[in-house]
């Protein structure tokens, strides 16, 4: 065994420890360090391999990548984390797809290696365009609503099937380099089509799934290059992305197929009747008074909080209430926001202590004993229709049972519907107060009221 092989083994151990230490906030930063050391050993190990002759290009490439990557990490606002993850995934899978392509043109291998290269490049290229599309939807340069049309499913399947068929043909006829570009175009096209019918609120599942593809692509590269480190790191990533997307699907009571082939936003037009039902609304003064006299308050954040950048004001509100002896907690739904755990990161950024961030299963039993639930920019995840109306598009989705609280307050711009496009019965309940306004502006006036008195 040569030195680089020892470094590779140590690198693999680093990645495993990185994931292990991610289990708790107390050890998570150590986990990142383990991952960084693992990556360092992997890179150094590769650089000292006997096959490496040409260092100029490598050095320039690494420096250039670092110069692009570091500012993204330093200046990206926390609300932009889902977009960053998507674009970073596009970069990673582009690398993997291009390496597969380069290997193919160099060797035109047969048999197992060619199969691995085809899997690597197929997953790689699909993930490149899919991630860019996901980025576009998250950044809102593309419409966040699902884009669907007649026969979409069959067109998508036809594109995927031709890509796979051509891939298999290339495995048996690797010398047909003229066909390879067509294979690439088909894979890239499928990536675009894959994301078109998926709406913004399904992004947590999709980003996790794309993460899984990127990992599996690296894994296939490991088979093509006979590199166990790539297989291990790729498999860890692949399973991580997969399990996260399963968790996200469960949190919406939907199947993979349902998320991927979309149509979630399509049902509503007929469902959302336009009958004007009376709602009760309140001014900041009235709301502040109710909050002040409560003994327990649970805040339910949603994507609207991220859009309004209201997390800092929300924390000030929680602090102001805390000073008055009110017990304030945050209830976090698994799919709130645009990526798994999105709300936690935003509230952590706003300096909310993480032991105040309570998961759905743990907070729901407490809801009935809660004086006030304050909902900020969340809609479908607190919609009681999920429990009561079997015909609702979100029927069966686990929700935060905010409606059980004595008083429910909802900060909302207007009576508009949420992502699922369905009306929320919660708003019309007698114990619900609507606080109309921008999440940040309204919270600011709440804080003002609370600190003035």
């Amino acid at each position, binding site marked *: 065994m040569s030195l680089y092989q020892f470094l590779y083994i140590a690198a693999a151990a680093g990645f495993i420890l990185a994931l292990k230490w991610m289990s708790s*906030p107390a050890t998570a930063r150590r986990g990142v360090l383990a991952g960084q050391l693992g990556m360092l050993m992997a890179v150094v190990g590769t*650089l000292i391999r006997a096959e490496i002759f040409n260092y100029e290009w490598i050095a320039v490439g690494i420096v250039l990548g670092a110069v692009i990557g570091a500012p993204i*990490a330093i200046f990206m606002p926390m609300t932009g984390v889902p977009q960053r993850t998507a674009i970073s995934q596009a970069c990673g899978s582009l690398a*993997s797809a291009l390496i597969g392509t380069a290997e193919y043109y160099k060797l035109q291998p047969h048999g197992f290696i060619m199969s691995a290269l085809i899997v690597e490049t197929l997953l790689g290229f699909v993930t490149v365009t899919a991630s860019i599309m996901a980025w576009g939807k998250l950044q809102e340069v593309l419409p966040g609503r699902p884009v669907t049309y007649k026969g979409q499913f069959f067109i998508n399947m036809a594109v995927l099937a031709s890509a796979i068929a051509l891939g298999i043909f290339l495995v048996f006829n690797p010398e047909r380099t003229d066909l390879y570009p067509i294979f690439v175009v088909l894979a890239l096209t499928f990536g675009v089509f894959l994301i078109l019918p998926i709406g913004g609120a399904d992004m947590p599942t999709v980003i996790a799934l794309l993460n899984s593809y990127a990992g599996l692509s690296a894994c296939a590269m490991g088979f093509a290059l006979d590199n166990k480190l*790539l297989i291990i790191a790729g*498999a860890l990533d692949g399973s991580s992305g997969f*399990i996260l997307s399963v968790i996200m699907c469960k949190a919406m009571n939907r199947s993979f197929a349902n998320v991927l082939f979309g149509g979630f936003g399509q049902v509503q037009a007929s469902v959302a009747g336009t009958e004007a039902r009376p709602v009760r609304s309140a001014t900041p003064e009235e709301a502040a008074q109710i909050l002040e006299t409560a003994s327990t308050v649970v805040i339910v954040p949603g994507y609207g909080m991220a859009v309004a950048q209201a997390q800092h004001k929300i924390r000030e509100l929680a602090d102001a209430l805390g000073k008055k002896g009110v017990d304030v907690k945050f209830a976090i739904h698994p799919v709130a926001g645009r990526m798994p755990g999105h709300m936690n*990161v935003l509230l952590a950024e706003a*300096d909310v*202590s993480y032991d105040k961030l309570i998961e759905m299963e743990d907070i729901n039993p407490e809801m009935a004993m809660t004086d006030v639930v304050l909902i900020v920019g969340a809609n479908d995840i607190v919609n009681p229709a999920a429990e009561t109306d079997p015909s609702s598009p979100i029927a069966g989705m686990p929700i935060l049972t905010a409606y059980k609280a004595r008083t429910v307050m909802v900060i909302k711009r207007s009576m508009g519907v949420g992502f699922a496009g369905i009306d929320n019965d919660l708003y019309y309940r007698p114990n619900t107060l609507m606080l109309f306004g921008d999440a940040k502006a309204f919270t600011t006036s709440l804080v003002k009221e609370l600190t003035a008195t």
Partner: protein
Amino acid sequence: MNYEFGLYVFMLSAFLGFELIRKVSPLLHTPLMSLTNAISAISVVGAIMISGEKDVPELSRILGFIAIVSATTNLVSGYMITDRMLKMFKKREPAGK
């Protein structure tokens, strides 16, 4: 290469991955995704191999170079932002007491 051995490595790592990820608190799912995203930049290893080898066709070398740049972008921004996020997760003493 012994493919059978490679497949065993894959199977064991995939199961290990499942077990490890299941234990991660939902609190940390976003940093976890950033971290695994950074780890998927392991493809930089393949990129270095293809760019550094002797007698590589020009096209492969160019593709390898682009791959190094994009994998390193993924790697650097992934690790740095994960650490930036985790730095923010703090446990505070209850306010007002």
